[in-house]
């Protein structure tokens, strides 16, 4: 079904099998996902692309354990998370997933350091260790000297880098970025994308959700979704299925 890079490690991080999601809006049931099979290996850099209404947001929610599929099975890092309760999903999100959002979603009243440390608070990590790890994550995105700045004192690109540091701080199984460059100018976009590239080169699993072809082209593999189904999965090594979607 999916195409795995020849250099990719064996371990599978994401395994979606026949996943369906149906929303009941009043009397009408809307099928947002109609049987999705995706397999992503550890260390992969995957872009999921599709126009609005294609179901890519729903897929992102399910990948990010923000929602559960109506049907089908989802294994994340070897664990079936298809129908976990809200509190258990929260723990999975905390440990396995590092989110990067279009709106950055930093808390304006907290310093960059405390924003980055926030996931560790919910992981029950002590104050001293939290600070240490948050500083290391900020250093990783090149912003350690801005640790005591509040989001309002940082540029958009810097804010998104802080958000990436926050996604990294728990050492998650994957970074899940939802339109991470949607609110950035071209320079800052290139900056953030370069950061994802670096993370990928360092062995991280990165899943990028976007509607822009040139952003998606940064990834090693592009999965195209349309009308709730996967239309193609194209990897840079040349395995093109039907990449003529514009």
């Amino acid at each position, binding site marked *: 079904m999916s195409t795995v890079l020849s250099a990719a490690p064996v371990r599978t991080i994401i395994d979606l099998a026949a996943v369906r999601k149906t929303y009941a809006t009043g009397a009408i049931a809307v099928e947002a996902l109609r049987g999705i099979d995706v397999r992503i290996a550890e260390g992969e850099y995957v872009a999921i692309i599709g126009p609005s209404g294609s179901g890519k947001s729903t897929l992102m*929610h399910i990948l*990010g354990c*923000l*929602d559960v599929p109506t049907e089908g099975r989802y294994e994340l890092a070897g664990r079936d998370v298809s129908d976990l309760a*809200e*509190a258990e999903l*929260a*723990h999975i*999100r*905390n*440990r396995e997933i590092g*989110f990067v*959002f279009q*709106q950055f*979603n930093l*808390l304006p*009243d*907290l310093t960059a350091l405390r924003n980055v440390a*926030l*996931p560790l*608070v*919910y*992981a*029950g990590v002590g104050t001293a260790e939290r600070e240490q790890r948050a500083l290391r994550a900020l250093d990783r995105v090149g912003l350690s000297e801005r640790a005591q700045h509040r989001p309002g004192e940082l540029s958009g690109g810097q804010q998104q880098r802080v958000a990436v540091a*926050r996604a990294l701080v*728990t050492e998650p199984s994957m970074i899940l970025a939802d339109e991470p460059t949607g609110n950035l100018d071209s320079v800052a976009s290139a900056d953030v994308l370069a950061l994802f590239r670096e993370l990928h080169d360092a062995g991280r699993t990165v899943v990028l959700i976007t509607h822009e072809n040139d952003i998606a082209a940064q990834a090693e593999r592009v999965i195209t979704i349309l009308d709730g189904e996967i239309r193609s999965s194209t990897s840079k090594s040349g395995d093109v299925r039907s990449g003529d979607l514009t």
Partner: protein
Amino acid sequence: MNWLETLRTAADAVRSHRLRSLLTMLGIVIGISSVVLTVGLGLGAQDKVRSQIDALGSNLLIVSPGSSTGSSGVRGGFGSASSLTLADADAIADSTVAPDVAQVAPTTSSSSALAAGTTNWTSRIVGTTTTWPQVRARTLTSGRFFTAAELATGANVVVLGPDTASQLFSRGNPVGQTITADGTTLTVIGVLAESGATSTTSSEDDLAVVPITTAQRLSGATSTALASLYVEARSAGSLSAAYQEVNAALLTAHDVTSSSPDFSIATQDALLSTANSTNKTMTILLAGIAAISLLVGGIGVMNIMLVSVTERVREIGLRKALGATPSAIRRQFLIEASLLGVSGGVIGAVIGVVGAVILPSVINQPVSISAPAILAALGVALGLGVGFGVYPASRAARLTPIDALRSE
């Protein structure tokens, strides 16, 4: 996420909206400060009344004559009958009849025009025995009280109340001087110290005390009708025993049944509870207003917390995405509401205490600062925060992360 961390998050949230937090607390601040003040006022008034009644004497029973029924069948009020006599006083003072009675002071009372030189003053003449200063807990600032010999002979001596003394003798020491009362010349032998007690009908500081024998001669009365009998029990513990003994002795002496006594016995506690009942009504009324204010304050907290939850939907969504469980979110908002409640309570208690210190100099009323009342008020404030925070907090906890993140 541990409690300390949650508390820190809540404190950050309260601090980052200072004005709003203060306005939210206002209802609780007003409520708690008024509770502290009203309770303080009530207790202060009670203390004042108690000290006044204590000043009447300690372990005291006050026997008053009952109502009289005239030949026409018209009944007079309590105290109108002349049913108490010196014989009754002697009977009660008998240690075999009433072993729990320490001392008895019978008193007569009449109004009389006093004169010292050209100065006139109308005062109350109290006729009594030598036990009176002890039973009524009165001391003298100068001179002496009359002796048993003077009592026996009906000597023309008088002990003046402090107010009476200052009215009749504006200068100099009254002791050794003379006054006239109803044409009889009396020598002033002593001046009483202030009693601190005020009664609504007569001042305890404006009176002239004479031997009861002298009083009878002054009024020209042949009878020995007493205004009241002050009975001192041996101790606070024997007060009720003394009450029973005096009651039994008088019923026997007057040959009446307990269903229609011609006298009444009041204790200090009875006087106290009568005096406090009006105070209590006032305190309950004020406390009721304070309670309504607290309720309104609590609803204010709930209202602002609901607004806060709506306003911070994105924050809630983000926290959930980062791994906050519903119970962590509920706890965060619950603690935030409690913090608003407690902060309001602390501010209110401080204002209440400051008010309790300042108020007595403005309204001439004692205000007690009651630690239990303050602690209870703080507890109520915390309870209000928690109670009115539950609903907003569970609404925050129920938000799904997707909806929360999606909102703009």
